[in-house]
């Protein structure tokens, strides 16, 4: 093994390591916004930041799981909040002031506005399909759930649909979606 090879290999590894550290240390959207500013990626615990806005939890967690803002990019939240009169088949209208406040919280903590790797992944690819943006139609969601048999979810009365996160992700409400904690009701633990 020649010295030149070792030298090149050493330089290459340093470059890779350094590029990784540089990539992780990116610092975007650091300015102060209404709504809670997320912590840096290194210190973040859990996959997604938990919902911190009590209003969001009441208004948007009343009919379905309170989806963390980090599950969609900011532009998608704008779309969702702009079509509340036809919110996936339901009327979820809110008065304008409340709607504006909630949108500010959602945008500030959206997938493309925080540092957590597993949150940013939701914003990495554009969402396919027509109509309002669905978390379950993001490329990242589909990649993570493509080995889950449909019968465990859609044909499972205790789950019903992939939108029902906390049925299987028992820590979903705190932002913990780790696959090691998945427990599908009627089936048991599931890891792929």
């Amino acid at each position, binding site marked *: 093994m020649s010295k030149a090879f070792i030298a090149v290999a050493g330089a290459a590894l340093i470059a890779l390591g350094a590029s990784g550290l540089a990539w992780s240390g990116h610092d975007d959207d650091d300015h102060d916004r209404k709504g809670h500013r997320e912590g840096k990626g290194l210190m973040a615990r859990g996959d997604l930041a938990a919902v911190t806005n009590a209003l969001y939890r009441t208004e948007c967690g009343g*009919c*379905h799981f309170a989806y963390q803002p980090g599950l969609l990019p900011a532009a998608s939240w704008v779309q969702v909040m702009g079509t509340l*009169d036809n919110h*996936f*088949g*339901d*009327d979820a*209208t809110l008065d304008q002031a409340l709607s504006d406040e909630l949108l500010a919280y959602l945008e500030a903590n959206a997938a493309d506005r925080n540092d957590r790797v597993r949150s940013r992944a939701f914003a990495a690819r554009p969402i396919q399909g027509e109509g309002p943006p669905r978390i379950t139609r993001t490329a990242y969601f589909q990649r993570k759930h493509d080995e889950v048999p449909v019968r465990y979810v859609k044909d499972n009365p205790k789950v019903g649909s992939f*939108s*029902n996160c906390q049925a299987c992700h028992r820590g979903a409400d705190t932002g913990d979606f780790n696959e090691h904690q998945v427990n599908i009701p009627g089936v048991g633990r599931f890891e792929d």
Partner: protein
Amino acid sequence: MNVKPMTVFALAVGLGLGTHLVSAATGDDLITTYQRQGAGPFSAAAGARAWTAKHLPEGPGEQRSCVICHGTDLTKPGKHATTGKPIEPLAVSANSERLTDPAKVEKWFGRNCRWTLGRDCTPQEKGDFVRYIQSL
């Protein structure tokens, strides 16, 4: 003057019952609002009938009714038709929080009437619903 104990007792009971009859029931402030909007008198029976009425949506989809999410027995919890999320009972007798927040009541009337009937409920319809919910 010799007042018999029994008389005092009867008076006390009478006053007690009387004040109970004239005290406000939860949701009466809503009734007053609807009366000021020109509606009334309201009837729990009319509310009960409207509760189970079915409505066809514009465009594709199943028939809609209050029953789909809230059920026919308002003293029991309901369930959101799409998400399955449990809904606390609507009857005041089963859930003392109901009808106490006018803003919340108007918000849900707005959304749910538009979804179920395809339009906002009239003050008359709202008042009938309130009476129905109070009566259970």
